[in-house]
């Protein structure tokens, strides 16, 4: 088809200003973003940042596997999973900005950077609300699989409950996300089993990976006050209620793999705060520096 010979053909807009991307200016364009009655707009926006930041930061980490994975199939798989999560992040950050524009950092007058990008690239570390599980370096493939299994099991359980959110936008994002994360969890579960039953070396690495990831497990089910408000107002999920369900699924994978839950202490709070409260691990600052540097150098750039 001659129409698609070049990715630059047929793009609308000012070709001079168009520098970095081809995406929709607003992934929620045309979606009714009215706030449901009884919902606090700031709590809704903050809750969307929490789920959006989980997806954004983990997507960035997983994308670092691109061209580095053990084989082509897994390179493509991890890139696809990262892309799905990036899509979810865009929708959630756009939802946050639409619900309460006050959460979006201020840029110079006339900056064309859309709110979802401003949230991703111009917030400082303490403004991010993701759980700390998604921050550390990928480690080897076994560490990555252990983390992906825990994350996708948690996220799938969360998104399944979020499908009945009284916020129609969150409900729609969750319904779509369930379909995607189902594939992510199956991928991680199958690789977990393969590595556990593979060679002595693959099993050794998997057990080491799980032990590395496990201290971040407990935090997934610690309820932040915003999550309490989200559950009370009917638009979100109290994560403490997910622990049993996530535990059952993980037990299914672990017992099939002949692997025990690691006996390691959970990472504690710092000054009473964890990831949801903006307190992050050492890896987070370096990750943000890499992710944000180009956007911050061009606050007037059209993305």
């Amino acid at each position, binding site marked *: 088809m001659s129409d698609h010979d070049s990715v630059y053909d*047929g793009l609308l807009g000012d070709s001079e200003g168009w520098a970095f991307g081809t995406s929709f200016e607003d*992934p929620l364009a045309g979606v009714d973003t009215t706030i449901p009655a009884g919902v606090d707009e700031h709590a809704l926006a903050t809750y969307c940042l929490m789920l959006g930041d989980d997806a954004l930061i983990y997507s960035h980490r997983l994308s670092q596997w691109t061209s580095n994975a053990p084989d082509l199939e897994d390179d493509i798989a991890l890139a696809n999973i990262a892309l*799905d999560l990036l899509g979810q992040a865009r929708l959630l950050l756009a939802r946050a900005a639409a619900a309460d524009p006050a959460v979006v950092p201020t840029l110079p007058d006339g900056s064309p950077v859309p709110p979802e990008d401003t949230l991703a690239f111009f917030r400082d570390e303490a403004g991010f609300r993701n759980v700390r599980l998604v921050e550390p370096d990928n480690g080897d493939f076994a560490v990555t699989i252990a983390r992906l299994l825990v994350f996708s099991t948690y996220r799938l359980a969360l998104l399944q409950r979020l499908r009945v959110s009284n916020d129609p936008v969150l409900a729609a994002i969750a319904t779509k996300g*369930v379909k995607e994360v189902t594939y992510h969890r199956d991928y991680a579960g199958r690789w977990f089993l393969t590595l556990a039953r593979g060679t002595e070396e693959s099993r050794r690495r998997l057990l080491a990976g799980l032990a590395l990831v496990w201290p971040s497990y407990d935090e997934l089910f610690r309820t932040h006050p915003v999550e309490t408000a989200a559950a009370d107002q009917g638009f979100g999920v109290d994560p403490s209620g997910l622990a049993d369900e996530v535990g059952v699924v993980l037990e299914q994978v672990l017992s099939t793999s002949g692997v025990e839950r690691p006996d390691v202490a959970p990472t504690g709070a710092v000054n009473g705060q964890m990831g949801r409260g903006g307190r992050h691990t050492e890896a987070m600052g370096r990750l943000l520096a890499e992710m944000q540097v180009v956007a911050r150098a061009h606050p007037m750039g059209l993305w």
Partner: protein
Amino acid sequence: MSTLSRTADLELARRVAAEVTDPEMPMLTLADLGVLRDVTQDGETLTVTITPTYSGCPAMATMRDDLVHRLADHGFDRVDVRVSLTPAWSTDWISEEGRRALREHGISAPGPAPCHDGPVPLSLLPTRRELTCPRCGSADVRLTSEFGATACKAMYRCSSCLEPFDHVKEI
């Protein structure tokens, strides 16, 4: 503009929009893919509603621009392309014509989409699908990856003719 010609206009706009092709699978029109949800007219403005296949589908902007250009070629200057997130896209929306076009181009068409209304079961064994190789017709095929060249495809290999092929995976 009379009511009659406006109706004729809307019919034309619907036909034009329906014939725009998917940028990543150009053998499929947006209508056959099930991505084109609606074309409506309000005064001089056309509103075209599309839905993403996957949340991160990078083809959405190209689809929007192709729709706007193609409709402009037919005299529709005011076109508003909107995104609808709900109901979420399903491979069940790919038309019979679309499935035929996929097979003709060596891509295996999806089976029925899984129902995700209740708790989603974990599946530790490779997905079993009753597929035949789109090149040689053999049923002796092997899944190489649940992820492929685009978000919506899995990769297979035929054990008879040894050729790899894409399968549009069920969602």
